[in-house]
C-alpha cells in the first residue's frame, strides 16, 4: 500500500527545506566574502588584475551552473578528491555566487560618483579607508536591491544541487511525490515553502529599490 502524504512526509520535506536554507546561507555568506574580493580586484586599477578578474567572472556567468556543479563534484573526484555532496555543491554555489555578486558590486562601486573618491584622496585618505568608509557604504546601498534579487535566485537555484544526489527541498518533494502519488499536493506544499522563503525577500528588495529611487530624485 502506498503511503499517504502525512506528518512523516511533511517532516521529510522540512528536512529538505533545512538543507536548502543551509546551502543558501553557506553559498551566500561565502559568495559575499569572495564576491567582495572579486569586486575589489575588478576595480583595483591594475589592468592585468582587472583583466583576470573579468575572465573569472565571464567563465562563471557564461557557463551553466549545472556544468560547474558537475565539474566540482565529478571533476574533483577524478583527481582523487572525493567530496561529500553537500561540500561539493556548497563549493560550486559559493564560487558561482562570488562571480555574480562580484559583478553586481563592481557595478555598484563604479556607480559611486568619482568625486567621492577624489574628495577622499584630496583629504589624504588611503585606499583602505576610501573603500571602507566612503565607497563601499554607498555601493552597498546602491546594490542592495540587486543583491537581494540575487539571493532569491540563489534560493530557487539550489534545487540544481539535486543533480549530484544532494537532497534539498525540490528533490525531497520529488521523492515524496514518487512515494505517495500525490504530486499536486506535494509540490503545492513544496511551492508554498519556497514562496514563504522568497516572497518576503522579494518584497524587501523592491521596497529598497523604491526607496533608493526616491532618494535619487531628491
Amino acid at each position, binding site marked *: 500500500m502506498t503511503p499517504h502524504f502525512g506528518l512523516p512526509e511533511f517532516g521529510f520535506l522540512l528536512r529538505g527545506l533545512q538543507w536548502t536554507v543551509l546551502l543558501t546561507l553557506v553559498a551566500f555568506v561565502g559568495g559575499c566574502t569572495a564576491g567582495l574580493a572579486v569586486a575589489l580586484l575588478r576595480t583595483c586599477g591594475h589592468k592585468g588584475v582587472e583583466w583576470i578578474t573579468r575572465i573569472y567572472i565571464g567563465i562563471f556567468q557564461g557557463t551553466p551552473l549545472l556544468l560547474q556543479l558537475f565539474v566540482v563534484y565529478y571533476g574533483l573526484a577524478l583527481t582523487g578528491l572525493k567530496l561529500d555532496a553537500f561540500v561539493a555543491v556548497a563549493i560550486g554555489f559559493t564560487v558561482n555566487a562570488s562571480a555574480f555578486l562580484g559583478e553586481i558590486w563592481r557595478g555598484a562601486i563604479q556607480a559611486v560618483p568619482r568625486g567621492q573618491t577624489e574628495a577622499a584622496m584630496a583629504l589624504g585618505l588611503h585606499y583602505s579607508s576610501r573603500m571602507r568608509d566612503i565607497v563601499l557604504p554607498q555601493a552597498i*546601498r546602491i546594490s542592495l536591491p540587486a543583491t537581494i534579487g540575487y539571493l532569491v535566485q540563489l534560493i530557487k537555484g539550489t534545487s540544481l544541487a539535486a543533480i549530484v544526489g544532494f537532497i534539498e527541498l525540490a528533490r525531497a518533494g520529488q521523492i515524496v511525490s514518487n512515494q505517495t502519488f500525490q504530486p499536486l499536493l506535494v509540490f503545492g506544499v513544496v511551492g508554498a515553502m519556497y514562496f514563504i522563503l522568497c516572497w518576503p525577500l522579494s518584497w524587501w528588495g523592491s521596497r529598497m529599490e523604491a526607496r533608493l529611487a526616491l532618494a535619487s530624485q531628491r
Partner: protein
Amino acid sequence: MQDNILIEMKGVQKWYGGYQALRDVDLIVRKGEKIVLCGPSGSGKSTLIRCINRLEAIQQGSIVVNGHRLDDSIKAIDVVRQDVGMVFQSFNLFPHMTVLQNCTLAPIRARRISKSEAEATARKYLERVHIGDQAEKYPAQLSGGQQQRVAIARALCMQPKVMLFDEPTSALDPEMVKEVLDTMIGLANDGMTMICVTHEMGFARQVADRVIFMAEGQIIEEGAPDAFFRNPQHARTRQFLGEILAHH
C-alpha cells in the same frame, strides 16, 4: 625668500592620452599668497590645480609643495596631500555621514588624532564657517551654500598649508554665492595661502594678490588684479575679460 615658497611648478607638461592639457607651466606660490586662476572652459585650470595634490599625474616637469618634491611614490603623495586642502565645484561631501563625521573622518584616519580631539577641531571650524549648529545633520538636509561651507570646513580640519578651490561657487544658486565667497574672504584675511579657480571677478579684485589667465593649457599672463583688469597685455585676455564681464 626661498623658504617662503609653498608651491613651485616647473616646466609642467600634462597629457590626457594624446591631448596636451598643460603646456610648460611654471608657477610659484609664496606663503600667504592668494591667487585667482581664470580662463576659458577647457583651458586647463582644473587640471593645473589637480596636479598640485596629485589627483592628476604629470608627464614632465616638477612640482614641489612645501619643500616636498611630488613624485609617484605613495609617501610623497601622502605628504603633499596632508599640506593641501581642496574644495570642489560639486562639494563632494560624503552623503552617508553627518556634517561632523565628514569633518572628522580624515583627521582620525589620516592624521591619527583621537575622535574627541577631531570633533573639537571640527566644531571650531564649523563655527568659523557659521554652520556650527548643523553638525548633526546630513549633507542632503543642507542648502548648497551650507554644503560648500561644510566642504571648506572639512578641508580646514586637516590644517592644510594651502587651499585649492575649483570653481567653488559655480554650482550654487545666485543667492548662495555670497555666503561662500564671504567665507573664502575670511579665510584669505586670516592669511591662508589660496589658489582659486573662479570667474568671480569681484572676489579676485578684493582678495587676489595675483590673477593668472590660462588658455589652451598655458599661462598666458598674470598680474596684480588692478593692472590685470585695467590693462591686460594679451588680446586673448582682453577677449576673455570682455566675455565674462558681459555676462555679469
